[in-house]
Each structure stands twice: as C-alpha cells, then as structure tokens.
C-alpha cells in the first residue's frame, strides 16, 4: 500500500513598507527554496500557496513535512522582494488547516 505523504501548513506574516501581491510572495518563497536547496530540494518540498488573507497580510503555505525545517529556513532567510525590504515571520505550523486556524485563534 502506498503511504500518503504527510503535509504541514505554515501561516506566514509578511512585513513590508509597500504592499506586495500574492504572486510576488509565492515567487519569492519558491526562488528562495530553489536558491538554498536546488531543484532536487524544491521538488521534495512540494510547496504550494493555499490561502492569502490581505486584511492582515497573512499567507498560508503547504509543504511536505520532511522538508518543514528547510522551508522555514528558506522563508526566514528572505529579506528582499522585488527590491523592496521585506521580512517573513512564521506564525504557526500545523498538520491540518483546521489546526492552524485553531492555533491562530488562541
């Protein structure tokens, strides 16, 4: 029987002086993963943007659980987004979207 791949959901907060678009953030995170871990690492990470909440400038990403720390490191190491100063902070990590929203409330 094929084992189902475990996933992790990450809630990110983006701090920037100018507003950034959903697409820009996704591209920056993907680029950062690619730069740090290469194509092989990026393929294992299986990173995907799930949700964007523009009111609070928060993003929810999904990645493979074995690459969680690597993805977190890649996200943390990002300081520029299209020549704009930016800093990413991981707010919460959970195995399910429901768990993530519960953690957010607490």
């Amino acid at each position, binding site marked *: 029987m094929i084992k189902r791949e475990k996933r992790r959901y990450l809630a990110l907060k983006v701090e920037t002086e100018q507003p950034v678009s959903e697409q820009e953030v996704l591209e920056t995170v993907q680029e950062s993963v690619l730069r740090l871990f290469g194509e092989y690492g990026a393929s294992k990470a299986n990173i995907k943007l799930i949700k964007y909440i523009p009111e609070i400038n928060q993003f929810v990403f999904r990645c493979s659980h074995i690459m969680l720390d690597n993805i977190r490191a890649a996200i943390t190491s990002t300081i520029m987004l299209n020549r704009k100063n930016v800093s990413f902070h*991981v707010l919460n990590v959970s195995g399910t979207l429901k768990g993530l929203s519960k953690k957010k409330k607490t």
Partner: protein
Amino acid sequence: MKQFADLYLRVPINNLPQAEKMISKALELGYRIVAIPFPSDTHREKIKEIKKICKDSGLDFATRVNLSPRNANELLHNLRKFRRKFEIVTVRCLTKDIARHAAKDRRVDLLQFSVTNMRQRFFDEQEAQLASQALSSLEIELSPLLQLTRFSRVRLLSILRKEAATAERVKVPIILSSGATDTQLMRGPYDFASLSTLFDLPLASAYRALSENPALIVERNREKLNSDFIAPGIRITGRKICD
C-alpha cells in the same frame, strides 16, 4: 515553557525611538531576555535609559561589551577594566593569539569570530578544548546568514558547520544570537532555530543555544556581579553590623 534570549541585539543607543521599536519587536517575537552591546565608554545614564525602555516593555535586559583587542596584553587590560561593569563580555578574536588567550580566560563569556574573513575564524579543536575548560561559549551571529548572498554565504555555512560540530563534540556551549541592527533582520527564536539547521545544528541544540545557554550565562554573571558573591558556590547570606 522556554525563555528565549537574544544576546546580541544591536540597538542604536543614540536613537531612542528606533531602540524602543526594536525592543518591542523582540518582545513580540517571543524573547524574554535581550543583551544590548554598549561602547566601553558609555555613560551610565545612557544604559539606564535603555534599561528603562526594556523594563517598561517587560523584557529582561543585560548589558554587554564587545572587546576587539589587538594583542593579548590589551585583552587582559580591557578585561580587568570592564569585567565588573558589564554583564556579558564578548571578545572578537582577530588573531589566533587573542583567540587562544580569550578562550582560556574565565572572564570571557562569548567568543566571536569574523563573518566575512574566513581566515580569521580560529575555532578549531584546540580552541574548543580551552573554551570548554574556561566555560566560554561560541557565539554564532545569524543576521549575516540573511544578508550574505551566493558564495560568501556558502563559505560561511561551510565553516559554521565545522565549528558547530566541533563545539558539540567538545561540549562548548553555543549561543545563537541575531546581531540585528534593525527590525527587518529580527526573526523569532523558532525561525532562527530552523535557520541553524542549514549548518547542521540539531534542533534540540539550537533551542538550547537560544534559551538555556544564554540564560545560564546571564544568571551566572549576575550572581558574580552581586556584592554578596565571594566565589562560585560561596556568598554572604547575612551581615552583622558591629559598632
């Protein structure tokens, strides 16, 4: 619950609004202890001002001095002069001779090496042996990992991997600190711990390097700077005033 500490928050001490911003950001990110470096000739008033900001925000504040001596004599002179004035003493080792002297001196808390010139990183097996006997710790500054790009970052990661492995093997405590000069370079402790996996530091050790190890240094030095302190394990518990 872990109490995280950032022992190297480079707050601009002459720009109080910016300092306040950085201190409140540290609290927001989940730190409970911050150490702020001051020039060795700073007035007590300036330190009091920063201490007040930290106290008002609910952060535990520790004073820190960074020494960059040119030779061993200067190191000893500076240690004699500043050890009792600051809670944390860091030595930036510019030569191998200074690195060896600093590692075996019990008055030195943290050993710091250059992040740009890899020839000035002298943390090898012998240095680690000396440091472990004198209770000095290896400080790893994490903001250069955010700022450097391409091969300079690759070189830094490569040398940090060797140093972290040596420190773990010889049981030299590692301290992970931000070295942030503005809020953009500040990250939460869990983010820094995951960043340290880039140089193969296990997560458990990274959490220790961000919480227990720095807290232990601050606690030990506060005890030593207390007027009741005599020697490790011996202190005055009460005084009798005789006429």
